[in-house]
């Protein structure tokens, strides 16, 4: 009997090539092709300027330079602005940049010219010889400057407002006015960024013999890139293949597309008739990819004596940078996912999405949820402090109860669908978390530490995450005559172990050996219909699609095997790749079933002889029946009515140094519910990584822009990403498995969860240690030190 793979900690198959240095990332491709050319980009050194003139005359003198492009050299769709990927009626003033700047630059890092040369060194030499005359314009940096609107980022966008959006369920303001207690909070979160270890990169090769373009890109959406490349270069979709090789991390930034280079590289490859590569360097990643997180929030909340939220009114201002290619996804997610596991009786949210002369903003792991969670959880803590109640008690009072699912919030989510939670058990999660972190014993610990002159604090934060957004994913399963199973799904992989997790699903569904399954992701030649890897959707969407496709292949296998074994399909079972009649010795290998599924005229090996025309089939019937097709394959798509909602709770105990204000993590606990777990090892790895990224976002990382729009810390030397010494030494994790009723495997997404509650949970713990409110994140020791000075004269609040 085949061992059940779903739910097992199966070691990852992809590790073998990664550990041997045999991974193939985009910059590794075509390295042995002597015709390969390399590229470099001239980027704006100014945050806001008009381009008066670009002089490239010195460039072509550089030996080894092959070509240079500016906007003037672009034609047709390439000369038009880049697509606005996700339009929304509220985005009344959406703007996107050009592949190469036309007339104006709006952030330091915006692409101006593209040079192709024999190697990157020479291409960079050439870039430095391009002369641009600029007429300087006033830069708009930061949310206060954008709101003040003394200067405009885009002359035709009044007040720097790209969008205004409001949603309401009930009458929040009336409920607040009538509530026994009211609190007001102002809460800020700063900019950060995904910063995967591998930056962006694209390679393209035009094959004149077949008139086909192949593009390899370090992207989170092969099909998205393919659609854009075909449209911009005026090619039929059928002429363009996009392949995503191994990707060195994404975390959201690589879902945006097409980047200028994703179009310029294929354009250059077609124009020059030679393969061309672009590999982003680290500084470029900081100034010309994407950031996220910066938002200012104003909260008014009305509640009763138990802390029950009667009315919640939130207004916030979202800094979306210089352009809006990804629409309003991030602020819409904040505005809806802010609600977490709670059910405020009345809720109103309104936001403005603002232009600034800084790098564009697109989703970064968590995508607006960390800010929303920060706002809601700070509000819960403020209510608890005000009422003198335990923070877990106030939360429990506001929880949606297990018998209230599906729970409708009366709002519209980021996918244009109703915000309706499918399942969860928040009270049970809270019980687990309290136990895991030692919530009830903490006061004892605090006293113990205080006796030693040490200051500690505890915090918790809860979140709900809409995962597995549509519209769909698909899968193709092919059982070869060898019995091996080749599976393709269109979304991409950036380290999540899809080759392992998806193979586990196929092994179980089909009844084959895990080792015989091979998964391909992100290759439009193998699966041209797909969306992408974002929003914790891969396991839910492609996992479900792969399960459904495997079921189809299995149905066909059973039908053919039943005929061959002269048995009823109902009596058959498949295990370890063998179909057998229950209770008998009669059996047939799936490989042989595959042979029988494809009637042949020509034999090419021993196995195929069995399928030739004198060997099989009823001579009175067509070899392939009218409603059938040759081959042992299954293909299917999964398209759910709406997202499935995972949830979790984090708690942290921190120690703050009484002298230096250094913040140390003593304990970190996570309770996580992402439905049924395919591979607990991989899920825990995702949580570890998310928590580390959250620690970075809460305590270390920020984008230090000066008032002229220069990013002062655009290197790993200055942007403080956590090393092993900054993260919790261990994370206590407990799982709850509340299956989703929306998909056949009962799974929910897990990828982003670890990072969502970080800002909230650290703010809560630091506040608990220090006794004054923490309203802005991230927080550094020097900022905490300043806060201590500011609050030095205040009496310690009673909690």
């Amino acid at each position, binding site marked *: 009997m085949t061992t059940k793979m779903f739910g097992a900690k199966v070691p990852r198959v992809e590790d073998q090539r990664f550990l041997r240095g045999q991974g193939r990332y985009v910059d590794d491709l075509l390295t042995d092709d002597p015709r390969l050319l390399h590229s470099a980009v001239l980027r704006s050194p100014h945050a806001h300027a008009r381009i008066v003139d670009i002089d490239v005359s010195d460039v072509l003198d550089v030996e080894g330079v092959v070509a240079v492009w500016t906007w003037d050299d672009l034609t047709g769709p390439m000369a038009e602005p880049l697509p606005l990927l996700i339009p929304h009626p509220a985005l009344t003033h959406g703007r996107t940049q050009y592949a190469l700047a036309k007339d104006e630059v709006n952030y330091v890092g915006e692409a101006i010219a593209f040079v192709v040369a024999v190697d990157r060194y020479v291409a960079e030499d050439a870039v430095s010889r391009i002369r641009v005359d600029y007429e300087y314009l006033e830069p708009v940096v930061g949310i206060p400057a954008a709101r003040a609107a003394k200067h405009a980022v885009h002359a035709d966008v009044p007040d720097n407002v790209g969008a205004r959006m409001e949603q309401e369920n009930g009458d929040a303001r009336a409920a607040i006015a009538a509530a026994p207690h009211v609190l007001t909070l102002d809460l800020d979160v700063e900019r950060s960024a995904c910063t995967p270890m591998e930056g962006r990169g694209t390679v393209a090769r035009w094959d004149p013999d077949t008139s086909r373009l192949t593009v390899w890109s370090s992207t989170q959406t092969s099909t998205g890139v393919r659609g854009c490349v075909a449209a911009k270069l005026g090619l039929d979709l059928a002429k363009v293949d996009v392949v995503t090789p191994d990707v060195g991390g994404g975390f959201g930034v690589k879902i945006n597309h097409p980047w200028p280079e994703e179009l310029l590289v294929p354009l250059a490859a077609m124009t020059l008739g030679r393969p061309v590569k672009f590999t982003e360097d680290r500084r470029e990643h900081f100034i010309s990819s994407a950031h996220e997180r910066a938002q200012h929030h104003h909260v008014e909340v009305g509640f009763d004596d138990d802390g029950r939220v009667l009315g919640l009114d939130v207004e916030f201002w979202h800094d979306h940078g210089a352009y809006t290619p990804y629409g309003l996804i991030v602020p819409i997610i904040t505005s809806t996912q802010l609600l977490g596991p709670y059910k405020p009786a009345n809720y109103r949210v309104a936001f403005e999405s603002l232009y600034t002369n800084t790098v564009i903003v697109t989703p970064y792991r968590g995508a607006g949820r960390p800010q929303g969670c920060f706002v809601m959880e700070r509000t819960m803590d403020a209510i608890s402090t005000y009422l003198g109640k335990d923070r877990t008690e106030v939360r429990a009072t506001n929880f949606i109860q297990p018998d209230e699912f599906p729970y409708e919030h009366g709002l519209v989510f980021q996918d244009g669908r109703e915000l309706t939670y499918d399942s969860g058990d928040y009270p049970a999660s809270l019980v687990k978390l309290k136990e895991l972190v030692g919530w009830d014993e903490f006061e004892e610990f605090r006293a113990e530490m205080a006796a030693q002159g040490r200051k500690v604090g505890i915090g918790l934060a809860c979140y709900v995450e809409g995962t597995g957004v549509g519209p769909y994913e698909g899968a193709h399963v092919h059982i070869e005559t060898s019995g091996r199973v080749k599976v393709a799904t269109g979304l991409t992989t950036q380290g999540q172990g899809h080759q392992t997790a998806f193979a586990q699903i196929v092994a179980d569904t089909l009844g084959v050996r895990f080792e015989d399954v091979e998964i391909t992701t992100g290759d439009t030649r193998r699966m041209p219909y797909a969306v992408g890897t974002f929003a914790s959707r891969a396991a839910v969407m492609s996992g479900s699609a792969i399960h459904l496709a495997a079921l189809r292949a299995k149905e066909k296998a059973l039908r053919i095997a039943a005929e061959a074994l002269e048995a009823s399909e109902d009596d058959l079972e498949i295990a370890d790749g063998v179909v057998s009649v229950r209770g008998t010795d009669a059996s047939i290998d799936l490989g042989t079933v595959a042979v029988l599924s494809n009637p042949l005229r020509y034999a090419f090996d021993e196995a195929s002889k069995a399928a030739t025309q004198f060997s099989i089939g009823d001579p009175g019937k067509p070899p392939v029946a009218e409603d059938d097709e040759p081959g042992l394959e299954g293909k299917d798509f999964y398209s759910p009515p709406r997202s499935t909602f995972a949830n979790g709770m984090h708690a942290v105990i921190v120690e703050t140094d009484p002298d230096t204000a250094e913040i140390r993590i003593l304990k970190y606990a996570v309770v996580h519910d992402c439905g049924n777990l395919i591979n607990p090892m991989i899920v825990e790895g995702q949580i570890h990584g998310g928590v580390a990224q959250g620690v970075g976002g809460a305590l270390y990382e920020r984008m230090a822009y000066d008032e002229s729009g220069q990013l002062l810390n655009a290197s790993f030397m200055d942007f403080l990403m956590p090393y092993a010494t900054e993260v919790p030494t261990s*994370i206590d994790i407990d799982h709850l498995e509340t299956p989703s009723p929306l998909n056949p495997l009962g799974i929910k997404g897990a990828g982003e969860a670890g990072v969502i509650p970080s800002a909230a949970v650290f703010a809560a713990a630091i506040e608990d240690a220090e006794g004054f409110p923490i309203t802005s994140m991230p927080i550094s020791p020097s900022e905490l030190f300043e806060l201590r000075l500011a609050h030095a004269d205040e009496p310690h609040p009673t909690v």
Partner: protein
Amino acid sequence: MTTEQLHEVRLHVNGSVHEVRVPARRLLSDALRHDCGLTGTHVGCEHGVCGACTVLVDGAPMRSCLMLAVSAVDAEITTVEGLTEEDGSLSPVQQAFSDCHGLQCGFCTPGFLTTITAGLRETPDPTEDEAREMIAGNLCRCTGYQNIVKSVLRAREIQAEIQGERSRS
């Protein structure tokens, strides 16, 4: 512009000799990747902070993005491709990463593997704190490091198992 002068450089990598012609400014990381075709060494920052490009130069961990290829002529260089055992099986450090889920996207992994390989030669029996210290100069954005620390300790365990087997046989 004048033609860039090229230098004949003989690099000793993983026991093989690579004759390459490179300009003086060519980074060792680029020479390994693009001239020797050893793309297992990855470049994450090109300013010596992330450690992804770490290779062993005469056994010592070195950021290959901070070294010029022309200055590596007399050295024995080991890259991730050279870490596997002679029979092609994974080294104890490599095996430990697989056992402990010490990698996700795999991009930073070669730098960790080389760093730890050298680290365990210097500190063959590290405590957990020493294991953390060993990897404290390398960045990883996926794993949160907990499983990498575990991998260091597991590698020590595997090495001990192998030594035990050798001493028995």
